[in-house]
């Protein structure tokens, strides 16, 4: 079987309405993929940056997959949350990006969005915060059921991923 290593960091996020952010992340793969070692999902620390308007997480990622096919190439999905001074968490954005298919080091920027509620919900959100969340988080990385959703653009999550491939050329796969 061919092997894929994804090693790197979730560096941080910028462009969100306020800082003090953390991120829940996960890697979704197709059925032909097997996780050999490493963590498939996790949650970062909460950063209150001192100067910049960039929250830094420096969260390490190191996963090792074996695969029998190219379908379902790994996708990394993120949820950015904001933690306020009372320790309450509120959703700030969903996003996903494909793990690059060419070997090497890749700096990536993952754009995010969040669902919009009705105007009543948006009005109350102005005062009490919160907001609608996805019931089914599969929607973050699938395109099948999105057409009913209304969303708003949020900030960007910055990643640095290195992809190492093994034995792909033995099967004639060019990457």
């Amino acid at each position, binding site marked *: 079987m061919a092997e894929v290593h994804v090693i790197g960091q979730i560096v941080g996020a910028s462009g969100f309405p306020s800082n003090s952010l*953390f991120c829940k992340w996960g890697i979704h793969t197709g059925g032909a993929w097997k996780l050999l070692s490493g963590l498939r999902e996790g949650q*970062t620390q909460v950063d209150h*940056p001192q100067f910049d308007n960039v929250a830094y997480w420096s969260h390490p990622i190191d996963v090792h997959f074996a695969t029998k096919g190219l379908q379902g190439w790994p996708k990394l999905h993120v949820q950015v949350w904001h933690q306020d001074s009372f320790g309450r968490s509120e959703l700030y954005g969903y996003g996903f990006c494909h793990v690059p298919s*060419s070997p090497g080091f890749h700096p990536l920027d993952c754009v995010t969005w969040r669902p919009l509620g009705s105007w009543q919900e948006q009005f109350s959100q102005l005062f009490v915060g919160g907001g609608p969340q996805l019931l089914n988080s599969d929607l973050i990385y699938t395109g099948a059921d999105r057409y009913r959703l209304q969303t708003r653009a949020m900030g*960007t999550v910055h990643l640095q991923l290195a992809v*190492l491939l093994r034995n792909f050329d033995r099967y004639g796969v060019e990457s």
Partner: protein
Amino acid sequence: MAAVANPTVFLLMVSGQIESAQFPEFDDLYCKYCFVYGHDWAPTSGLEEGISQITSKNRGYQPNLVWNFPIDITFKSTNPFGWPQIVLSVYGPDVFGNDVVRGYGAVHVPFTPGSHKRTIPMFVPESTSMLQKFTSWLMGRRPEFIDPKVVARGEGREVTRVRSQGFVTLSFNVVTKDMKKLGYEVSSAAMPNPAAASMGDGLHRY
């Protein structure tokens, strides 16, 4: 050097330096480094950890803190999983002269042969309650990680609150041996090695 036809291990040779740091609020800092790596990895030569000198800014001329501290280490492994990370912790005196931590940070050793520059964000853990904040200020003891190596691990991070307050710039020269023979592709022919300078500089200037 005897050429081995069917190698079972690959080598990763890292040399470089901890060049400099940007901590706008602090001065007289020193830096500790150590490496964190997976079970399949073993260092074959070089120093796994070190402590730099105490450096200060040159006001008006050089806003950065310069360490120019060398790193030189070689690893061997059978599996890229657990690729080495360098963990930095920066310390300096507070107003009472106690040594307190000014930042933790970590980054993976670069993957492709060549020279690379990395600028990494540095953060300190924060007290979670106002009372703890007050007592730590009073006693002059800031919260610290018991083991700085936690910053290189992905588990258990969700409980930590941090404040990022500086950057450290590192340069690396990486040489690998026998990775290709073991079937690994580290870089693509279509995509040349990202230019070392353009990547490292301005990394934190999104």
